[in-house]
């Protein structure tokens, strides 16, 4: 088993953090895991993406050609990565920011108004955790519990303890969203 997950969006949307929390949870669950960011002259508002590979054997390449799950936090990310998603895979689309249709009939598509949910929860920055909650559910490898712990540890060490509760809500909302699947 080797599963690739790509998180992609604007810089500042918490793309790298969402991937890191997932990688950390997978590690705690005993999986082999790699996390690889896009790197270089990146800036806030530019594009950002990261790839997480979760496997039960040592991971060879941390680069994934055909991810099983794509989280597209904005339109350009959807255009760039959706053709590469594996057949039968899952695309989670941020319906708050993405208006274009996904031109794939052979994958599952989950439209979630990530930013609207985050706004509702009172913290616009937690859209990434709503997406991560849905990703964990779609992945089906482990429960949300290790993800909640990993999120808490990630935020706790960055002096953002006060954000833990709202991010917990965000993860739970995302996790419960899979019934919207079409």
């Amino acid at each position, binding site marked *: 088993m080797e599963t690739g997950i790509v998180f992609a969006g604007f810089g500042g949307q918490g793309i790298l953090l969402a991937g*890191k929390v997932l990688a950390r949870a997978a*590690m705690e669950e005993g999986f*082999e895991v790699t*996390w*690889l960011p896009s790197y270089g002259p990146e800036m806030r508002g530019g594009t950002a993406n990261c790839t997480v590979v979760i496997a039960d*054997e*040592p991971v*060879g390449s*941390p680069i994934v050609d055909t991810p099983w799950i794509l989280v597209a936090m904005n339109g350009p990310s959807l255009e760039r990565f959706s053709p590469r998603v594996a057949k039968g895979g899952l695309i989670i689309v941020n319906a708050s920011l993405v208006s274009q249709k996904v031109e794939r009939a052979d994958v599952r598509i989950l439209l979630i108004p990530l930013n609207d949910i985050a706004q509702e929860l009172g913290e616009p920055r937690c859209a990434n955790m709503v997406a991560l909650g849905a990703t964990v559910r779609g992945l089906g490898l482990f429960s949300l519990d290790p993800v909640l712990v990993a999120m808490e540890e990630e935020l706790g060490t960055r002096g953002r303890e006060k954000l833990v509760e709202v991010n917990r809500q965000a993860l739970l909302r995302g996790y419960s969203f899979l019934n919207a699947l079409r």
Partner: protein
Amino acid sequence: MKVLMRGNEAMAEAAIRAGCRCYFCYPITPQGELVEYMARHLPRHGGVFLQAESEVAAINMVYGAAAAGARTMTSSSSPGISLKMEGISYLAGARLPAVIVNVMRAGPGLGNIAPAQGDYFQATKGGGHGDYRLIVLAPSTVQEAAELVMLAFDLSDRYRVPAMILADGMLGQMMEPVELPEPILPQMIPPKPWALTGAKDRAPNVVSSFDLDPYRFREILRALWEIYREIERNEVRWEEYETGDAELVLVAYGTMGRICRTVVRQARREGLRVGLFRPITLWPFPSEPLRELSHRVPVLLTVELSAGQMWEDVRLAVEGRAKTPFYGELGGVVPTPDEILSEVKRYVRG
């Protein structure tokens, strides 16, 4: 306890745990996190972090700290390492132990910041001027990167030969779970009676790479090459994976080594008898074990993120006993396991 860390961070932490207390650098992508980590953590351990005015300055600060007996390190990426080469030659000539980390990116020239393995020649065949070698270690996982940094300090001190960690942008940037090695105690670092520590109550020590008398300098170099021969006898390291019954063995190091491991697993699932030979020390190169392998394996396929540099050492070791084809990518492009497997299938059938 396993922690999730970037390769760059794990190498920095391992250096601190190896007793490195003097780190000099000049920033460059894709090894920036190593600099950041050192800036944040080294002062807490009573160490010196110094961002120099240039790469040339940084390597010469390493020279100074090493001459004073400190465990010292610098890190950079390909173009920055080129700038450090003069100083590295001086370190080698003066018999000074130091660790240099090269998180390779694509070249030549400014190239780009994507992972590549085009600095193999530079690392293993000289790079700087003169008759010298570096101990060159090539990690393929974040775990191994941490372990090899610890080893680099030990080997460098033991032989008084500078050691280089040859990593690449992928290994530097990626995070993986790592079990960090235990920190060494200061008393575990062997004494350095040759160091410049103030000549109170003893004759002055001299640290230099300079001798105008060719006959005297020849003797210095002969002694140095005795040390190199000793390193070749004692310190060759490599890993073999599924080579026992292999009809084809992939030869790859670092990032390509780990990707080729996946290729071997995929090939085996399809019934192809494929193995992997992964050099861990690039110098000294594992020529002997590769030579032995070439007596029973008909094809040794070298795979690199370069136009074929280690390939030359493979061919020198094999001396025509087996087929030695090459597959490589250029410019920072990383081949997928599938692409390599297609290449493998040109030589073996299930």
